[in-house]
């Protein structure tokens, strides 16, 4: 059963106020607690290892799948989830992990998500990570995401982690086939002494594949962030990485974009910037009547939107 804390975590990570419509699977402390399937979307528990297979029939339009994970005590949780998005389907998948750790033991969730976006399909994947609890136990999240985007298919990823998670290493690997498209938007905010590492590797192996990766982060307190965004073009393709960080207090940010072309018609661009909040922005908002703190919050909220 879900208690009040669970419901709050669900709201944070999946924007869910109650049990969702459509297909869903809610996992709590290493156990599946509730599941719903639809005519077009099936969810099957894996037999050989912990995790589920989500199978979306070809041509499924406008449906969504929610697969939130919540941890409310110190434990290690490791899941393998496989998503099969059938040809021509158009779906929204919302994953996310919320940790409420009020104890002193470490709570860790490592998820390996593997996606097959079949020919001509469109998938929007939203992943939110959120941690809370006053205990000394660390909240650790290490998601690994592997995506195969087939011919003419589109994958749009929104990956958000705002405060709350103490240690994280995020690995994302994407392969784009002919005329496949990828749009990634990553948002990260760390504070206190948190550490976050994000490695994104995109391989464009088919002609006319396109990739756009936009990563924005804010590092506060004494937190540390490391970004390694890597774009590889093996065909006539276009790719753009943009990595933008606001650094505050005594935080550290390292941003290492990498682009490699293995084809004379690959067009790859990277941009990376790290800097403090521009004082002109603060002064402008203060001249509209906001205090310095309010101005700062408004700028950060916009930046991470």
């Amino acid at each position, binding site marked *: 059963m879900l208690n009040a804390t669970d419901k709050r975590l669900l709201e944070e990570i999946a924007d869910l106020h109650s049990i969702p419509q459509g297909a869903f699977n809610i996992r709590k402390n290493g156990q599946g607690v509730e599941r719903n399937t639809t005519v077009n979307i099936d969810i099957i528990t894996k037999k050989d290892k912990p995790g589920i297979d989500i199978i979306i029939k070809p041509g499924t339009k406008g449906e969504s799948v929610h697969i939130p994970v919540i941890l409310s005590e110190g434990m290690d949780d490791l899941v393998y989830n496989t998503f099969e998005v059938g040809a021509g389907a158009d779906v929204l998948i919302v994953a996310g992990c919320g940790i409420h750790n009020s104890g002193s033991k470490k709570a860790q969730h490592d998820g390996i998500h593997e996606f097959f976006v079949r020919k001509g399909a469109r998938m929007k994947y939203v992943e939110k990570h959120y941690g809370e609890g006053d205990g000394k136990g660390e909240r650790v999240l290490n998601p690994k995401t592997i995506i195969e985007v087939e011919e003419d298919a589109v994958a749009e990823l929104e990956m958000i982690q705002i405060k709350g998670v103490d240690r994280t290493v995020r690995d994302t690997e994407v392969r784009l086939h002919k005329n496949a498209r990828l749009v990634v938007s990553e948002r990260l905010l760390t504070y206190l002494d948190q550490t976050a590492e994000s490695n994104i590797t995109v391989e464009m192996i088919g002609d006319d594949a396109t990739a756009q990766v936009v990563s924005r982060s804010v590092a506060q307190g004494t937190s540390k962030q490391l970004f390694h965004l890597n774009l590889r073009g093996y065909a006539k393709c276009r790719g753009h990485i943009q990595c933008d960080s606001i650094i505050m207090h005594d935080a550290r940010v390292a941003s290492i974009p990498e682009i490699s072309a293995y084809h004379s018609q690959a067009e790859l661009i990277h941009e990376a910037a790290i800097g403090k909040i521009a004082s*002109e922005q603060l*002064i402008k908002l203060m*001249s509209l*009547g906001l205090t310095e703190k309010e101005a700062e919050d408004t*700028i950060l*909220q916009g930046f991470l939107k």
Partner: protein
Amino acid sequence: MLELKDVSLTLVGDKGQVEVLKEINLTLKNKKIYVMTGPNGGGKSSIGKTIMGIFRPTAGQILLDGMDITQKEIYERAHLGIGYAFQQPPRFKGIKVRQILELSSGKNQTENLCDLLYDVGLCAQNYLDRELNASFSGGELKRIEIATVLARDLKVAIFDEPEAGIDLWSIQRLTETFVNLREKYDMTIVIISHQERIIKLADQIILVAEGRISGITSQEKILEDIRQLDSDCRCRKDCIGGGLKNAKCDR
């Protein structure tokens, strides 16, 4: 009414201390348009920023309707009814035109926002939901900046070179907006400008040079002076001597 009494400003830059403003005395009345003009680097923007509280005077006093606001913070002056349209406004990633105008007006009324954008020559439909980011041209950004000041209920509105980057057709529209502001509201309007059309709006011209008020004059006088300079020297606009009477040249 806004008064500056013996206001001096010293800033510390790369070259050490610089005396930017020297004993500025000004009285700016309600329902008047003041155009501040003068050579670049003369201190016009610094006067505007000192009124807004962005620079704090090293000496002197600033009074708003008799109240001493010299030590007030920027946001406190904003609440008291002072507004400043920046010469080079910043861009904001992730903040939409709608949000910045709502922050300015403190209200949430789309209808008014449309009027505001119309006043600066922009179509609300195309702009309200656009992010104020690098996709904005200099001129577009400038118009939004002016709109953020028009949105507010102000006692003193300062516009720093509002015409810069704005096409001639829109300057006409903008000048009408300034005249409307003067007529409709009990507002003191200060415009920093070199544009003839804007100078023609002025009830008074304030000449600023070398950190001082070098004169307070009428628009007729200043326009006559410009005509005089033009007739004395046809090369004035391109001349490094600025067409001054004592410039050394072969005319």
